[in-house]
């Protein structure tokens, strides 16, 4: 065995130029696998994170009909004041309740359809999609805040400004018009422009009074620790409520987002395999050439009594050595390039397109151990299989013919 490794090692340097070329191909391939995976994973986890801040929540409890008809007619059949006692002290990382209804916002010149949210500002500060640092004016100050917080884009569309009054119109459960004037106390920025146009925030109690639904909400929002493991949270929330409430995970609330996470996880494997396929042609070609050059030598070794399996082993080991060195270099390179962008990559030049996908203009890189392991094991396993064929051919040579082969 030792001698085989020694032989394989030395064989690598017999045509060092070819080895170097192959090595750089493997290195670049492995780098691309890992770096690109880190990039997609970073993008996905950010999209999921942002998406969850808008849904919001890892798990939501709401009226079973609310999904089909998200109006004030489908309130959570549990009074708001009763929810706090049920959710508090169950180890959720954060939770809140809110009233969310469709509404029309009008200024002197324009009116638009929006979703009006009556929120608990302190609780929502933990997970809100509102960029709290860049609010022009102020954030909401409590459940009975009489002002509204609107997005910068909506402000522009309505041709109004901070401090002005706007009118919000919605419906009561009896289908009567509920409307009143509100003063704009704050203008927020969000990662995605669409959100700035969609959401209008006010105090929860203010909205309850306006719609005539005191102590009622449309949803309870619960966050666990990790968006990949929400089953426990969902079960725990399910225990709190009875069957009149539907408890849903974020993957069910936003199917696009949930599906995307699954697709991207699968896509990582596809991506790694595709790169490897391209790589494997080079690898097999190199090995075939290496074997071809050494037909007489292999014949001689066979004639001297080396077993065919050792020939096979020798060639496989040669290819594995090549792959391992390439992997090591590729991994180091990928790690270096990921750490070169600790704050993410600024792709604001294509910000519009990214926004359409629901992603922001800074790409964070997310290098995950499991993706690195996946890339490395795919390369090793498939590399092993790919090198079997030339090695097998070499081990099957007839020694007499091989020795007499004229180059």
């Amino acid at each position, binding site marked *: 065995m030792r001698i085989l490794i020694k032989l394989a090692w030395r064989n690598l340097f017999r045509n060092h130029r070819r080895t170097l070329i192959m090595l750089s191909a493997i290195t670049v391939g492995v780098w691309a696998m890992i770096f690109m995976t880190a990039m997609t994973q970073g993008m996905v986890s950010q999209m999921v994170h942002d998406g969850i801040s808008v849904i919001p929540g890892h798990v939501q409890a709401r009226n079973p009909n609310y999904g089909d008809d998200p109006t004030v007619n489908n309130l959570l059949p549990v009074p708001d004041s009763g929810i706090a006692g049920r959710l508090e002290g169950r180890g959720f990382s954060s939770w809140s309740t809110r009233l969310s209804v469709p509404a029309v916002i*009008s200024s*002197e010149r324009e009116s638009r359809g929006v979703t009006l949210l009556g929120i608990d500002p302190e609780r929502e500060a933990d997970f809100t999609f509102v960029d709290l640092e860049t609010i022009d004016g102020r954030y909401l100050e409590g459940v009975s805040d009489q002002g509204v917080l609107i997005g910068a884009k909506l402000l522009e569309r309505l041709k109004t400004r901070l401090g002005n009054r*706007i*009118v919000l119109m*919605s419906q009561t459960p009896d289908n009567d*018009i509920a409307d009143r004037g*509100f003063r704009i106390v704050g203008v927020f920025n969000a990662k995605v422009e669409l959100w700035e146009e969609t959401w209008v925030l006010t105090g929860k109690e203010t909205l309850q009074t306006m719609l005539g639904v005191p102590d009622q909400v449309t949803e309870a929002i619960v966050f666990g620790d990790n968006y990949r493991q929400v089953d426990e949270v969902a079960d725990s929330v399910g225990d709190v409520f009875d069957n009149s409430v539907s408890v849903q995970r974020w993957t069910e609330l936003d199917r696009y987002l949930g599906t995307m996470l699954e697709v991207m996880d699968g896509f990582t494997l596809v991506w790694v395999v595709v790169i490897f396929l391209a790589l494997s042609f080079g690898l097999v070609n190199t090995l075939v050439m290496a074997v071809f050059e050494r037909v007489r030598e292999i014949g001689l070794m066979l004639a001297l009594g080396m077993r065919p399996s050792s020939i096979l082993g020798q060639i496989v080991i040669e290819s594995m050595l090549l792959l391992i060195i390439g992997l090591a270099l590729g991994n180091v390179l990928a790690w270096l390039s990921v750490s070169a962008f600790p704050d993410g990559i600024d792709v604001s030049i294509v910000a519009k397109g990214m926004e359409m996908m629901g992603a922001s203009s800074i790409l964070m890189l997310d290098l995950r151990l499991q993706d690195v392991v996946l890339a490395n094991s795919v390369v090793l396993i498939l590399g092993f299989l790919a090198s079997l064929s030339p090695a097998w051919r070499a081990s099957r040579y007839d020694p007499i013919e091989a020795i007499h082969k004229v180059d």
Partner: protein
Amino acid sequence: MLRLSFICVLLFACWPLAGEEQASATDIVRAAVDHWRGISSYSEMTMVIHRPDWERSMSMQAWTKGDERSLVRVTEPRKDRGNATLTNDNEMWTFSPRINRVIKIPSSMMGQSWMGSDFSNKDVARADDIVDQYAHTLISTTERDELMVYEIESVPFEDAAVVWGREVLMIREDHVVLEHRFYDQDGALVKALTTLEIDDMGGRTVASRQRMQKTDEADEWTEISVQKVEYEVDVTDSLFTLSNLRNPRE
């Protein structure tokens, strides 16, 4: 115009002056609204919608009862005949014979244009909000054609469902609204309803031709001219029902 001022002079002479001096701004506004509406009324009018590249006119009949109920039915042109709007309190329904459906105007559409005009559905359904959702102040009193004209500034209450920063009403002492201007919150004029002609109809002096015009678009306006008004007519409650909206019974 001479004729008009003559009528005005006549009216001025007949109008009882007692107590008018003390009338507060709110009372002036309320009186103007009541004067225009009456306890009940029947009117026939024509609405002209003017745009830079087209113009159309519609004739309508309208009934009102109290502050809350009104019914408007289109009589001309032929293709729009039977289109009707019913308002009751803050609710509004329309009926179109073409689709043979009564549609309740949802809150989301209250801000939109009424039958393609420069009036919004809200202007039609909630015209009397001007009385109780605003703080009124008398800012000046001038004399025009020997009649006092009150200029009243109306500022909506903080939580009133009104987008305007303020509105200015020019109300003549005989309760005719001469002008109704809508300002945005930066003080810029957005649109104005101007009375172009005043006539004696149904025993009252009323604005017989009014034009609503947006300041930004010089060549777009809607004019309503009243041909006939009768006040305190006997209007039955059954007129303001959904079934009558669909199947007129007269």
